[in-house]
């Protein structure tokens, strides 16, 4: 330590190095992410200070009486599903930012304090925008948390009644509710480096079955020509909840994200009666185009294929009773 005290104070180094180090750290962090994530982070940093729009609608009565199947879109991949008396929520994202840096465009369409209970909380994968610790802390804990295989190491003690870690085709059954993890095509990891060992782990879709109704939640996925047909062969699905962004305006999307056309193919492959598009409008999805473009594109494509009346396009905060 004596040697330490002999060395003069280097003021310039003190001033410059933290800035350089911070930039180097951010560059290193970003370089380990996909170009899609890089665009989102850079765009989000540019939005610091901008206000978040209020949700177009707000869910005032999250749990309805005498309902067979109802859905509410809270924003992004967060969907509140009610089948008879059972309540499910998918990938809850109720915070103002995703992963600390990515600010949302539109506030969530649900005040979680209005939720008296959630029977099942379903997590599709461990990315920040789908597995939000702050959002899970806002939810009632009287139900079961379902997570994909590999996610247990990323799951704090939230206090849920139970946690079920599921790999594709695993099924849990509780009080007549059957939840099956189904394969989708995405990627996982949460902190960059772990992407490398979470190659076939940490992401899933789900099929919920209860009292004669079945809902498919795709989470985040790219299109795959076989996976969704297999899901369609195994289940008689009433509602498919499918992401429609980010994706190219033409084609089926990337390997890990569907475009509106890819989402429509998934809808047809699983053979569902209705489709609820999600995973758009809520944040920056990699392009500065009109935030409503994915849903407009989906509607045009669905109309061309005679499927428009089966597309349930909800506003953020809108609730719909299907049956």
């Amino acid at each position, binding site marked *: *330590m004596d040697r330490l005290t002999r060395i003069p104070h*280097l003021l310039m180094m003190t001033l410059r190095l933290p800035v350089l180090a911070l930039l180097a750290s951010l560059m290193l*962090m970003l370089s380990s992410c996909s170009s899609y994530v890089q665009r989102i982070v850079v765009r989000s940093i540019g939005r610091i200070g901008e206000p978040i729009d209020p949700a177009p609608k707000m869910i005032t009565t999250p749990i309805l009486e005498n309902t067979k199947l109802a859905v509410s879109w809270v924003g992004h991949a967060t969907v509140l599903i009610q089948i008879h008396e059972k309540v499910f929520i998918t990938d809850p994202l109720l915070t103002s930012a995703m992963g600390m840096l990515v600010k949302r465009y539109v506030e969530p369409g649900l005040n979680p304090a209005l939720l008296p209970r959630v029977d099942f909380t379903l997590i599709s994968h461990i990315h920040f925008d789908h597995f939000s610790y702050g959002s899970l802390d806002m939810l009632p804990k009287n139900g079961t948390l379902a997570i994909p295989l590999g996610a247990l190491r990323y799951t704090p003690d939230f206090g849920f009644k139970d946690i079920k870690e599921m790999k594709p085709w695993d099924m849990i059954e509780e009080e007549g509710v059957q939840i099956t993890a189904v394969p989708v095509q995405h990627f996982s990891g949460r902190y960059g480096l772990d992407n490398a060992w979470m190659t076939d782990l940490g992401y899933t879709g789900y099929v919920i079955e209860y009292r004669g109704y079945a809902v498919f939640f795709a989470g985040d996925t790219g299109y795959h020509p076989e996976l969704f047909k297999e899901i369609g062969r195994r289940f008689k699905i009433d509602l498919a909840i499918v992401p429609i962004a980010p994706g190219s305006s033409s084609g089926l999307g990337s390997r890990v994200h569907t475009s509106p056309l890819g989402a429509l193919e998934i809808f047809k492959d699983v053979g569902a009666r209705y489709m609820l598009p999600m995973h758009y409008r809520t944040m920056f999805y990699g392009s500065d185009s009109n935030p409503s473009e994915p849903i407009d594109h989906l509607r045009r494509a669905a109309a061309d294929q005679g499927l428009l009346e089966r597309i349930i396009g909800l506003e953020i905060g809108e609730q719909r009773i299907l049956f």
Partner: protein
Amino acid sequence: MKRLLIAFAFFGVVASARAQDSATGNRFGVWFPFQLIPNLTLYSSSAQSGFGFEWEVTPLLYSFGMNKQISPWYSLIVEPTARFTGSIELNAAGQIFTTKLGNSYFAYSGHVMAYVPLIERGEHLSLNLGAAIYRVADQSRVFKVAGISTIFGIAHFNIKHSPNPTTWIGSLEFRIF
């Protein structure tokens, strides 16, 4: 101190090997090469400022914030969730500090640290408290450590204090996994 470091490393390797399971893929094979890349540390005291590179290893960590279905004990590979959701850890590090061109020196240290989650289960902000022993130029000094961690455990700002003679050191450390 050397014996202690060797014991930590040995225990860590054994414990990590035992912790491998099919649900987490080839974690060690990916993680280990990345540990050869040092963490960047910037520091400033009343006497001097500079930067350093640090190779850090966590032989043992007890997480009290994780779900009860997994073991609270971690070794070597510690997901940031496990550390910042609340934990106590032993870690050891080797550092090369540079104050100006041509003036670098080596140090090694051992730490006992506790992490207390403050925001978003500690991913956004956690409180760091602990103690460290540094050995530099054949002299050892004990420091009390307090600070914060943010950006998913990538950035750490710590203040270290040691009496006799009173020394305050502020450090900004960047750590990836």
